[in-house]
């Protein structure tokens, strides 16, 4: 008897979330413990010197999750596409499911990053330490949680998407071609850094391209375009791809 089942893209998203649940949880646990520990030692011992004094430690916390999500993105297609197609899921629905996973992982990671700011501020205030942001952001103070969330979400989404493009490139093409494409696949992440001017990389890239920081509405529009392009490029690469037995 035929049962009603969820939409295939939701099946993909649900199964990927289930598969990666402990990876995500363990990463964030280890990351928070290490980051808080480093911040605590720097503050208590004053080993950082004048450069770090008065600066938000948590502000620099976004770099590691970006790379982590990029690595998870690289694994998406090579490790999962074949098993979903072998279970009667189309490539199109796989892509839709992965997009959902990217969005959900980016949301969860952005919430955790956003929550870190008020906690850090409370610790600074308790100890009477001054607190300031070093880099330009969509937000100007650590109290603008909405903008902190939006900026983190867009960056995490773009890095995850870039990783996904790299993995799809290796699945679709010969490794020599894939290596060349990997450099191009980094474009969404780099473009988002330039648009958002989020940290040293964004600053460096804006200086390199002699680009000015985009006004907020334009920055947000460009971010959405970058996210859509990531999905479209993956779709173009995977829509006719032959399923391989084992890549890794």
């Amino acid at each position, binding site marked *: 008897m*035929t049962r009603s089942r969820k939409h*295939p893209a939701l099946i993909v998203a649900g199964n990927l979330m289930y598969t990666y649940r402990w990876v995500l949880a363990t990463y964030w646990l280890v990351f928070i413990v290490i980051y808080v520990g480093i911040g605590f030692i720097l503050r208590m011992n004053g080993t950082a010197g004048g450069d770090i004094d008065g600066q938000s430690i948590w502000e620099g916390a976004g770099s590691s999750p970006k790379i982590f999500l990029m690595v998870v993105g690289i694994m998406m297609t090579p490790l999962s596409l074949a*098993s979903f197609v*072998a*279970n*009667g*899921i*189309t490539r199109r*629905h796989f892509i839709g499911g992965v997009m959902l996973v990217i969005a959900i992982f980016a949301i969860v990671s952005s919430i955790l990053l956003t929550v870190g700011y008020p906690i850090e501020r409370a610790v600074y205030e308790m100890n009477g330490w001054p607190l300031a942001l070093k880099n330009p952001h969509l937000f100007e103070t650590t109290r603008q949680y909405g903008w902190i969330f939006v900026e983190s979400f867009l960056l995490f989404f773009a890095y995850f998407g870039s990783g996904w493009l790299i993995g799809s490139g290796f699945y679709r093409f010969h490794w020599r071609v894939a290596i060349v494409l990997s450099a191009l696949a980094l474009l969404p992440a780099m473009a988002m850094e330039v648009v958002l001017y989020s940290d040293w990389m964004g600053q460096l890239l804006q200086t390199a391209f002699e680009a000015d920081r985009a006004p907020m509405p334009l920055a947000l529009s460009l971010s959405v375009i970058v996210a859509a392009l990531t999905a479209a490029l993956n779709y173009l690469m995977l829509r006719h791809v*032959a399923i391989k037995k084992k890549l890794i």
Partner: protein
Amino acid sequence: MTLGIEVNGLRLDYGKFAALRDVSFKLQGGKIYGLLGRNGSGKTSLLSILASFRKHTGGSVAIGGEAPFENARIVEQVCFIQESGHMTDGVKVRDALKLAASCWPNWDDDYADKLIRLFNLPVKKRVMALSRGMKSALGVTLGLASRAPVTIFDEAYLGMDAPSRYAFYEELLNDYMENPRTFILSTHLIEEVGSLFEEVLVLDEGKLLFHEETEALRSRGAAITGPAEAVDRIAEGLTVLGEQKLGRTKSVTVFGALTEEKRKAAQSEGLEFGPVSLQDLFVHLTKKRGDKQ
């Protein structure tokens, strides 16, 4: 629910190499088909196209009247199980079963549990930790419990030991009787599985050599044994697939319809007629020139 399959002028190229050339056939729904062919004959390529694992280069494929590639309505009805499988190595067996249960619309949990017990599948182990036989057992469990209207096994049971393979054949037949669907079995173990096939397709060098009912194909071959001169007289004009000689006694395997006249003549000369097994027919029909020397 059963689905028929229609393939017309199918072609698949890997660069300059043509893996499939002008393959055409029509499979009625609700039968067990055997797909036979030597290594590199194009069996897996053909099955990969039916299962939408690969897009064909030319010709057309229709399952249930629709093109299957990236067609969600069709791909959820076609389960393709290969020996090495496409399960993620890092997941546990129970998670592989959970994924299958969430994907296949006709998945039968109770039947899956029964098969898990039958094959002693360790559900808490990771797929990568399973032996080759256990991976095969997991594959056939997924295929059978999917109850997909088109279920394809491509050498999926090769790694299993003999008792497990026979248990699989029995299960397949029982489940087919209770839940008719289209099965396609690709195998090199023709002696073992041959009795299950209702129709046989033989591929050779990317071309479809035969598509016939199994019994009709078998009846087209015969082994004639007796004195060498008499055997040669009867075999004259027939397609001789193979011959063996011991002293003055000779045995030839012929292919093609034997006329009543020839049959009577053979009997009057005291020659013996014997059936030819599907495997022998397959071996003779797909022999290459190099093999015969």
